[in-house]
């Protein structure tokens, strides 16, 4: 049973460029969340997708956008890259369970983005 897979594993971009990161959720999961993890910090919530719609969004600018496809996979797009966008980007999938106010997150290994 494949877990959460992310691609690419590493990426180097120049300021001002655009980047797309990809995520395939764990089999059977329908919800995808994206987190940004700076060095030495905990993951920071970017947004969450469910039923192909952005359901929740963290405190990130509009340069960060995403998409969820019918097969539940997801993309994270970042435009006009800044040096401060350098971080590990984690995708986490979970299963929506009606009436249950929590759902464990299953994380991928992340994409290490370096902006120069």
């Amino acid at each position: 049973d494949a877990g959460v897979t992310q691609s690419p594993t590493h990426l180097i971009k120049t300021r001002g460029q655009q980047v797309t990161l990809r995520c395939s959720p764990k089999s059977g999961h329908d919800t995808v969340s994206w987190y940004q993890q700076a060095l030495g910090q905990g993951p920071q919530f970017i947004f969450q997708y469910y039923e192909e719609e952005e359901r929740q969004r963290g405190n990130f600018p509009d340069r960060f956008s995403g998409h969820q496809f019918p097969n539940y996979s997801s993309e994270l797009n970042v435009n006009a890259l800044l040096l401060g966008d350098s971080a590990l980007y984690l995708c986490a999938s979970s299963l929506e369970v009606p009436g249950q106010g929590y759902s464990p997150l299953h994380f991928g290994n992340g994409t290490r983005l370096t902006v120069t």
Partner: protein
Amino acid sequence: QQPVQSPQAVILREGEDAVINCSSSKALYSVHWYRQKHGEAPVFLMILLKGGEQKGHEKISASFNEKKQQSSLYLTASQLSYSGTYFCGTGGGSTLGRLYFGRGTQLTVWP
């Protein structure tokens, strides 16, 4: 809304015990604990819910004090495999999937 974890780092010998604390200024609905090894994805350990339900993982246990809005993770008779950074993530009742993570506690277990 980011929870505060303490201590920032712990160094142990195999077989010793450790406690990691997580506190929040906001009312908590759930507290999630994850462990992340260097270069790897965070791995789910357990969830504690308001009302006292608890789910465990391996031989690690945790408590949830609703009044104090705190959770503690207990690692007893630590093993080398316990080394890593432990994160608590806090969620409210209306924030399915959205967790606020602390800055982490780095645990190192030596033989």
